[in-house]
């Protein structure tokens, strides 16, 4: 009888990958809104994986920032653009085959190298709890400068977006 976290890992991993497939290749709909909704599901199940990894703060941030802010922005833009349903263009067979072959090769390289290196075999059992208090302490002592720089980056992005969305873009 496997432990509950192990079962939950398989459930969340399966959900993440299934919704990821439905984001990029949905057999029923090529609508961008459907892709966005499945991306929300992917992100939420990935937050479940973060909880299993004891990264509670990051799970909350993942849901708040990605599933909340970023995806709302995506949906807003999709509806603003008012895209017609993407008409069936004939997908060039050569490009599809090339994409599948190259991505399959990358999958093979990744999985083979992970399994042959087996990086977790000799590692001691994890004792780290991704405690929010420890994370905050680290963020405000050792990583104080990057933290401040990131806030400047957000300001720059905001100014840039306002400039880009002006009516007469020079």
């Amino acid at each position, binding site marked *: 009888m496997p432990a509950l976290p192990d079962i939950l890992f398989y459930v969340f991993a399966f959900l993440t990958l299934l919704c990821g497939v439905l*984001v990029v290749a949905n057999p029923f709909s090529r609508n961008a809104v459907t892709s966005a909704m499945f991306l929300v599901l992917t992100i939420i199940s990935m937050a479940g994986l*973060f909880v299993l*990894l004891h990264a509670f703060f*990051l799970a909350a941030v993942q849901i708040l920032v990605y599933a909340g802010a970023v995806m709302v*922005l995506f949906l807003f833009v999709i509806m603003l653009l008012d895209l017609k349903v993407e008409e069936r263009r004939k997908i060039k067979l050569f490009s599809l085959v090339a994409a599948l072959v190259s991505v399959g090769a990358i999958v093979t390289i990744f*999985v083979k190298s992970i399994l042959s290196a087996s990086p977790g075999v000799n590692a001691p059992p*994890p004792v780290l709890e991704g405690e929010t208090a420890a994370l905050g302490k680290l963020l405000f002592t050792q990583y104080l400068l990057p933290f401040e720089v990131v806030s400047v980056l*957000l300001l720059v992005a905001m100014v840039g977006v306002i400039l*880009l969305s002006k009516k007469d873009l020079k």
Partner: protein
Amino acid sequence: MQIGLEHYLVVSALLFCLGLLGLVTRRNLLVMYMSLELMLNAANLALVSFSRFNNNLNGQILVFFIITVAAAEVSVGLALIVALYRKRQTAHVEDLTSMKL
């Protein structure tokens, strides 16, 4: 079998490749952008699992910064897409070939 680092890394690698596949095959700018987000998320998952199994919080700090930068990047990218759509009335990459001879 105990769930170890490899399991999380395999999930992360598969998710990354899904994002790559979407980026190469889909031709809608917005869906391509979502595939990019998928790839970023895969990298985040790998970093968090490394952080957990190496007993080191630095990975989680890096993920925190990645999420912040990704939010900024999404806002700028979507603003660019909206500006492009205003000029060309399309979000399909095969119609955006003005740099082609």
